[in-house]
């Protein structure tokens, strides 16, 4: 009997990943699968290895051992032929292809917006850059897209010609998100997207992120130390401690009924919203 | 009526005659002899040889004379000559350990095998102008000849090798690979250390000095100690077919500086001292010290140090070190740029015209609004005037 497909197709797989700088520093024995349209939260304290893991997953730093497998293959994907799933071993493909993936199919939202923005050029040029990299050559359309996306991240579209330096930290983060999402990437990595912002600014940004991920059906790997952020955005969670995953599962399950003592400690130390 | 500028040829010829006249100076003075430059302005000659990367004191002196003492120009003259020379042979690496020492000091050990040898140096002189020199009093009539100047001292061991025996300092290994030749091949960044050292060796002394200095002031700090500085003559050897051993073809004076720097070690390696290295033709002590500082700073990446300062950025440091390249490109701004400038003129006029049109249009729009709206409230200052505020907004939006 043919069974209905319960799980959505896999997009990214981590297979026995290890990247250590010293004993307990870095990450090891990481295995998981991210499915399309899923938001996976990686939580843990600073030093737990979650940022190292994110760098490995997003193609920025090769692991000592293990594989990161990306399932390319949709129409328009730089990975492979249309409609056919092709599993790419991220660190076995050429640098050219890896960089092309980063540029065209993936997006990376840095904790510090200044790392993700081109500070010397206007907000509009920042939003338009990825489109131009994909070959968009119509100034009017680039501008329209810029204004549209500034509106979607709740920035005043009239400020399209202003430099990012004139924006507040929260606005810069919105701009970075707009710049990343404008090409509708298949996979988005976010590194503490609300870190370093005031609590009130954080709340609005989170709300906006939640709306956007839902509307666009984004696949996201989100790294955060903030369980409230994880609860709002992530479908599933992985809890990391000293470079290893100590617990993984559905977000509500983990936060409402933590099994591992470390997770219990983490959960009990924050006020539930 | 405009007459096109002609006569470049005549102008150039005249400029050259004029410069030659300037160089010669007043005719009632004796013409400076090249041999005098070579003998009495030896440090200038050495600097020119080092940065031109050609060991020829006579031609370096000639270049200095021809350039009216302009070091950068003299380096250029000698470099341009150097490039036309055939390459007859490649020498073996010079052995500075076998140097006939004339000066050799260490700041790390009070006494060292072979001893500290001060040699000829301006260190410890009081920087007082010597008016005897102005009066032209000959030295040898008043003062005895210096000791040790005749024979030179025997070869003595490299001080850093002593640390080497204990494993306290990183070992430098010759992996036998053919070094890159910066005089033949274009730089291909990132470059290896051998290439880097070549580029630094012919780099401008003032530039290296400033960069080396910056590392001491915290921009890429690397805790240097002057492990050993030595000057003296080394043999230049080549291999000749038909002879068993290498054949010495002459001696050249060289300066070498080995810096000892701290390094904390990493997970895998025990703490060890690291090295910075400087080497130059002739008596170029300042240059070699600066070079050693910069060399060590440029090893930041290799040693896993954060790259945060100018002196640690290899492409930045190396691409701008050559005075021949730098002075050429800066001076080319003197060449005519009529065409490019014309393009910019045309654009800026157009932009200004458009700006004026926009401003005029805005002003018109504003005066229309003003006419249509009620009179401003009596007694209100500029600040409270809503129309003016609006006009300002409109202008800002246009911009």
């Amino acid at each position, binding site marked *: 009997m043919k069974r209905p497909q319960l799980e959505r197709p896999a997009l990214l797989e981590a297979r026995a990943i290890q990247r250590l700088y010293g004993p307990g520093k870095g990450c090891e024995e990481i295995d998981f699968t991210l499915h399309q349209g899923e938001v996976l939260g990686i939580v843990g304290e600073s030093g737990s290895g979650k940022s190292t893991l994110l760098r490995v997953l997003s193609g920025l730093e090769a692991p000592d051992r293990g594989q990161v497998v990306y399932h390319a293959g949709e129409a328009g994907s730089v990975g492979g032929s249309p409609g056919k799933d092709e599993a790419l071993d991220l660190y076995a493909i050429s640098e050219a292809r890896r960089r092309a993936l980063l540029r065209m199919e993936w997006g990376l939202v840095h904790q510090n917006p200044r790392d993700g923005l081109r500070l010397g050029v206007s907000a509009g040029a920042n939003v338009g850059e990825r489109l131009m*990299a994909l070959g968009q050559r119509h100034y009017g359309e680039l501008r329209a897209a810029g204004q549209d996306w500034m509106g979607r991240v709740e920035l005043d579209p009239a400020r399209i010609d202003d430099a990012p330096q004139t924006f507040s930290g929260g606005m810069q983060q919105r701009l970075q998100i707009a710049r990343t999402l404008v090409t509708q990437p298949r996979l988005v990595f976010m590194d503490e997207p609300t870190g370093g912002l005031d609590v009130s600014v954080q709340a609005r940004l989170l709300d906006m992120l939640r709306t956007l991920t839902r509307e666009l059906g984004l696949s996201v790997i989100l790294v955060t130390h903030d369980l409230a952020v994880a609860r709002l955005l992530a479908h599933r969670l992985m809890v990391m401690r000293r470079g290893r995953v100590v617990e993984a599962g559905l977000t509500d399950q983990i936060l409402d009924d933590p099994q591992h003592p470390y997770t219990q400690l983490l959960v009990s130390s924050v006020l539930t919203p | 009526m405009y007459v096109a500028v002609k006569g470049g040829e005549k102008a150039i010829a005249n400029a050259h005659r004029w410069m030659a006249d300037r160089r010669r100076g007043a005719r009632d003075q004796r013409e400076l002899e090249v041999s005098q430059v070579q003998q009495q302005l030896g440090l200038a000659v050495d600097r020119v040889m080092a940065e031109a990367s050609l060991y020829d004191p006579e031609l370096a002196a000639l270049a200095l004379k021809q350039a009216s003492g302009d070091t950068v120009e003299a380096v250029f003259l000698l*470099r341009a000559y150097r490039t036309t020379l055939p390459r007859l042979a490649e020498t073996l690496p010079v052995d500075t350990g076998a140097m006939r020492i004339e000066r050799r000091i260490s700041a790390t050990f009070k006494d060292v095998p072979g001893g500290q040898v001060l040699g000829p140096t301006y260190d410890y002189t009081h920087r007082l102008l010597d008016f005897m020199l102005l009066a032209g009093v000959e030295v040898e009539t008043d003062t005895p000849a210096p000791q040790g100047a005749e024979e030179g001292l025997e070869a003595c061991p490299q001080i850093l090798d002593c640390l080497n025996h204990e494993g306290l300092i990183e070992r430098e290994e010759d992996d036998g690979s053919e070094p890159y030749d910066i005089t033949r091949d274009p730089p291909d960044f990132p470059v290896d250390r051998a290439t880097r050292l070549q580029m630094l060796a012919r780099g401008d002394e003032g530039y290296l000095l400033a960069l080396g200095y910056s590392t001491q002031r915290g921009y890429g700090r690397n805790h240097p100690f002057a492990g050993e500085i030595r000057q003296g003559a080394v043999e230049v050897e080549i291999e000749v077919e038909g002879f068993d051993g290498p054949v010495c073809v002459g001696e050249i004076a060289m300066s070498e500086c080995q810096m000892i720097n701290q390094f904390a070690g990493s997970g895998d390696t025990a703490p060890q001292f690291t090295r910075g290295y400087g080497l130059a033709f002739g008596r170029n002590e300042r240059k070699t010290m600066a070079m050693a500082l910069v060399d060590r700073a440029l090893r930041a990446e290799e040693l896993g140090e954060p790259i945060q300062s100018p002196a640690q950025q290899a492409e930045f440091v190396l691409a701008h070190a050559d005075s021949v390249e730098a002075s050429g490109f*800066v001076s080319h701004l003197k060449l005519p740029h009529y065409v490019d400038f014309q393009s910019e003129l045309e654009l800026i006029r157009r932009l200004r015209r458009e700006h004026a049109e926009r401003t005029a249009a805005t002003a018109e729009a504003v005066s229309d609004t003003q006419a249509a709206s009620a009179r401003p409230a009596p007694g209100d200052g500029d600040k409270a005037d809503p129309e003016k505020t609006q006009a300002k907004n409109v202008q800002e939006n246009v911009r």
Partner: protein
Amino acid sequence: MNTAIDSGYNFAYLDEQTKRMIRRALLKAVAIPGYQVPFGGREMPMPYGWGTGGMQLTASVLGADDTLKVIDQGADDTTNAVSIRAFFERVAGVETTTATAQASVIQTRHRIPEKTLRADQILIFQVPIPEPLRFIEPSEEETRVMHALEEYGVMHVKLYEDIAHHGHIATTYAYPVKVDGRYVMDPSPIPKFDNPKLHMSEALMLFGAGREKRLYAIPPHTRVESLDFEDHPFEIQAWDEPCAICGATDSYLDEVIIDDQGARMFVCSDTDYCNSRSEEKA
């Protein structure tokens, strides 16, 4: 006919080994249009930045029966053009000319002659900074990767900014082009007025950057497109008046200030073009 050669130097100054090395690099450049080929540039007896790259290329392709023309800013009689021409007269003894049509090799700084070039002519450009991405990305290591991966989006970011702030693309010279649909290339600081002459040219175009030790080429009949936007297409400069000397309306004009009140006139930057038109009229 090497009679005019100063003794002590090889024909056209460079030794044959070096010339061969440069010619090999040139062949590679022709095979990969617009790609910057590193070459072992030599010191020349002229300062870097004054045309040493162009001179090395000229020296490498020059034969005894060639006729050489040298222009700077379009003119044969500007000081640097005079100096370079005199250099090759001295070290190669070749014939020189100021007439574009009679030259087989033309070395130029910042202009392309107005008269259309033929298949039997070579145009050699002096290039100060060969890397079109340099002012966006200062690292050579990074720009090489960007070329390799065709990561050129950032070039349009610059053009976008121009339009956003000025309403126009504000690049007027050294206007970047895409060669044969692949490499983005700096055409050297020629005014953008000259860019269309690069496209499908009959003549071989060679570019030499001495200080940066790079050379590149546009072979004959190669597509050369100036970067632009669909709704802000590339356009060239135009003048409201013709050349004050020859009356040309189709040439690049230099502005000449003729009195201290700021009065000015416009004349052809290409002196040979202007002279030959004036002579025809006379």
